[in-house]
């Protein structure tokens, strides 16, 4: 009898800890549901809606960016990043977030104030490995936040449009993954080298970063 009760409690705890994540809005390339939930929760704590830069981490699709970054990474780095996500998502199951018994939940289930408090505890820890783990996670989310063209436009940090000269090497180097036979350029396509004319601060922005037409 007791065995069944204990098993049921353990099962319930496992479900609370590892299951019940919402489906992703878009198919993920590399991350699992729980990892997407964790990154989205962290990004919203780091970059909440409103304030000096209006866009939130969720609006900037930080989770989608981190998913693409993990997909582009090599296996060993993927393992390390996944371990980092697991650590943050489940550390609060053992070391509760400030605020009483309600803090004994996985990170993505905490409320906003609790998430911010937990991250601040990691950030200011006296233990170097904890600070390092926080810095690593924040770095991934920050990369994602700054990948948002809207965020970059707000800060006037979006890349400029640049006319790229065609040099002789461009007649030989194909797109990565393509055959050299795919290079269609000839010497007639060569252009003068870089002009040395400084870019203007109000120069047009690179494709993909300009304000969308309404």
């Amino acid at each position: 009898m007791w065995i069944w009760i204990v098993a049921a409690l353990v099962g319930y705890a496992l479900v609370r800890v590892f299951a019940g994540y919402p489906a992703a809005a878009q198919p993920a390339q590399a991350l699992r549901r729980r990892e997407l939930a964790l990154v989205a929760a962290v990004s919203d704590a780091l970059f909440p809606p409103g304030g000096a830069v209006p866009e939130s981490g969720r609006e900037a699709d930080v989770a989608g960016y981190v998913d693409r970054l993990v997909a582009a990474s090599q296996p060993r780095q993927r393992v390390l990043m996944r371990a980092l996500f697991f650590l943050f998502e489940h550390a609060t199951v053992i070391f509760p977030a400030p605020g009483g018994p309600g803090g004994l939940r996985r990170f993505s289930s905490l409320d906003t104030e609790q998430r911010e408090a937990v991250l601040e505890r990691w950030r200011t820890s006296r233990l170097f490995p904890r600070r390092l783990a926080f810095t690593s996670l924040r770095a991934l989310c920050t990369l994602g936040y700054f990948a948002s063209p809207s965020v970059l436009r707000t800060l006037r940090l979006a890349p400029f449009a640049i006319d790229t000269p065609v040099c002789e090497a461009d007649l030989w180097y194909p797109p990565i993954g393509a055959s050299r036979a795919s290079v269609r350029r000839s010497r007639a396509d060569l252009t003068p080298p870089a002009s040395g004319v400084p870019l203007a601060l109000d120069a047009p922005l690179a494709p993909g970063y300009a304000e969308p037409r309404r």
Partner: protein
Amino acid sequence: MSANGVDLRVFADYDRDVTESVDVAVVGSGPGGAVVAKELCDAGLRVALIEEGPPFTPAEYRVDGGISMARTMREGGLRATVGTVMPTMQAICLGGGSLVNSAICNRAPDFVLENWSERFALKHTRAEDLAPHYDAVGSYLGICETPENVLGRRNLLFRDGCRALGIESEPISRNVRGCRGSGECFTGCRSRAKQSMDITYVPDALRGGATVLTSARVEVVRTSGRRATGVAGHIVAPFSGKPSHRFRVDARAVVLAAGCMATPVLLARSGDLANRSGQVGRNLQFHPGVAAMGIFEERVDPQFGATQGYQSKHFLRDGFKLETLWAPPAVLAVRMPGSGHALKQRLAEVPFAAIWDAIGSCNRSVGRVVVRRGSLDPRLEWRLHPEDTPILAHALFTLAEIYFAAGAKTVLPGVHGIPEELHSLDEARILKTHPIRPGDLVLGGNHAFCTTRMHGDPAQGVVDELGRCHDFDNLYIADSGVFPQCPSVNPMWTVMALARRTAQALASAH
């Protein structure tokens, strides 16, 4: 010889195992290998230049910092030392680090070369010995000071702060022609102004008859007695590194220019080659870097201007060099304190910010490169020596001085255990008084050296002054691993100068 009259192979074109026979196999196409390949072609030798990464064109560059690193850097840009944890990046692409560095060109200071000569029994590596090689490379690449019209306010504020304090400073000399100040050196120059190896030395080597194998990972150096007989490995897919066909290059001589991390791993995996001295993989040094951010009242618009356009070598003998810095905003923001709305407030200050950094000459901080089981990636063991930490603290304080002299209202030093914001020079003095530990600093270490150091005594070094391995008649090394100590300044020009000398020695010997 394929289309367009040059023999360049890319991943998609390999449809079978590859075997080549040449005079010299050069492993690595960065500033060392590319120079060697071109010089040997000029000397009439048949050369195979072998590069693990693919060629990149501007269409392949990504201005997004994270994705760019994942595509162009080994281990996706997440490589780091253990001991004192410090990220360090090595490129994997045709042209090597020259594609994604900020093109800084400094000659090694005379006092450094004198020290090398005296301490490492090097009779022909003084300034006057290397001058012809520096000159030749400088002339070929058009190395010159960054023009004032593309410095941007971020660089000019540094100049102004240094002038106010009487600190010597200068525009940085770079291998750049026609810079437009896009500040995108680290993600690839879309202006094609940076004279990286892939558009300079490598094309000249191709024109000179070299075979360039890209996406070719060398896994073993083949030897017979005291002679290297070639290299072998696998063709690997770009980015994933998944192996496909095998390749083998037979050669009368081999030059390893795979970089300070990869060359010792390659030697070790080839049967502990060239290691009678026991120095292969040892003596690993970096220029550990620290950075601080200054916030000004008026807009700095730091995204405009040469990525690293100004520097001060005033404190070289004190152990550090100062320079301006720009990088993809996301990479810089990683250093900012706080989270939530406080962090967002900080981000909003970036257009008013200048970022400057210091690199330290930390000769006491030594580590080693170790072969990682089942991988060609190295394990990097390195610790910042406690006596070197004050050098970096001194550098940060000096940066704070320059910031305040230039009119900054706030300085963010990025050091754990001291205030996140400093509002005056008085407050900044805590950088001198507070006991800072290595783990308190946010370090970066992108110049690495000494893992196959040159030494006049074969018992104490891996190569001689000409880059030839003491234990071999025809195996050479031409990357920053041959430096006997860190050079105190950015190493690329010195790598190229030494590589040119090695190529000339090899050409005359074979």
